[in-house]
């Protein structure tokens, strides 16, 4: 399988500017939703081997939370945010404006708050793509999965055979009231999507 073949650097830098813009807009929407100032650091995009994802998250058996969206329309693909379970609890506190350590488990409310974060981030990222290229894209409703890292990753593999390939990792820090929590997103365009996007970028 060709490494870097499916994610040329041109595509990565094109995506980088869109991601940054999309995340800033998502932060503004979060601010409105939470009622407190929410910001996002400049997202860092790197290409990572799919097989290395469990290492980044502490191992395939570690408990984690996945927030998953399908990208539908002219640029089909997937967006997955995988956060270690303890970080997801912090993130839920952040979104709900609670002191860190308040959320001890993820009930319906907390899951829905995390889903909303995924939804906003995904939507604004896709809006940025649509605005810059004039194509039709929309996210599916978000799904929140609490399970082992390996089991969450299987969701990506079920629709896109990227096992021995590189995927794009977007690392961003969500900041609210000087508190910050890091979240990693994985963007996996379906294969024909990459060619179209790269053409748009050229």
């Amino acid at each position: 399988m060709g490494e870097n073949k499916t994610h040329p650097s041109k595509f990565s830098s094109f995506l980088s500017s869109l991601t940054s813009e999309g995340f800033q807009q998502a932060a503004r929407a979060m601010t409105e939703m939470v009622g407190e100032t929410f910001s996002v650091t400049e997202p860092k995009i790197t290409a990572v081997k799919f097989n290395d994802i469990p290492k980044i998250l502490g191992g395939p058996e570690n408990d984690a939370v996945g927030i998953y969206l399908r990208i539908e329309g002219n640029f089909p693909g997937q967006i997955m945010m995988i956060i270690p379970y303890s970080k997801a609890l912090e993130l839920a506190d952040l979104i709900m404006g609670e002191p860190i350590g308040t959320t001890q488990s993820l009930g319906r409310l907390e899951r829905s708050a995390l889903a909303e974060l995924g939804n906003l981030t995904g939507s604004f990222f896709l809006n940025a793509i649509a605005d810059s290229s004039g194509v039709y894209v929309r996210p599916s409703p978000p799904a929140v999965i609490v399970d082992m890292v390996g089991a969450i990753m299987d969701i990506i593999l079920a629709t896109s055979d990227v096992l021995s390939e590189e995927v794009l990792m977007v690392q961003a820090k969500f900041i609210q009231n000087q508190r910050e929590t890091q979240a990693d997103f994985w963007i996996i365009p379906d294969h024909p999507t990459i060619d179209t996007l790269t053409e748009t970028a050229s």
Partner: protein
Amino acid sequence: MRDSLPVGLGEFKFSQDPEDILIAYGLGSCVGIGMADPQTRIAGLLHAVLPYNPNGSLIPSPKYVSDGIEILLNELVKYGANPSRLIIRMAGGANMLNAPGFTQSFNIGARNIKAAYDTLQRLKLKVTSQEVGGTIGRTVRFYVRDGRMTIRTLGNQEREI
């Protein structure tokens, strides 16, 4: 002290050392299929991701349930296992995306399980025990010594199937 051999996504491993434990971590829709011959003390574990090799690909790969079962069986037989004696255990194949808005077409877990049954039937092999389907991830341990399989899910004790 027993040695643990992790079996990664789309891989298979086998061992003739009775002290070894073959492990597939965090199976979601993937399936783990263990085969052991208690007489020759050889055992292998497959960690397959997708049901069938896509059309046009002529190279068999353990990434696929159908190919993987045949590859594992052939390896074990090559090292002296007798297919009629095999203990075969299977776990995984969960539907990890059991959420509104996602259709059953995403249920790769069910398709993996079906591919496993169809392939085993074609090869005239029978499953000794299994724990498949559901909506949760599983870590699977397969013991070379006796062909036991244990399963761990998030927040639960390890148990034998």
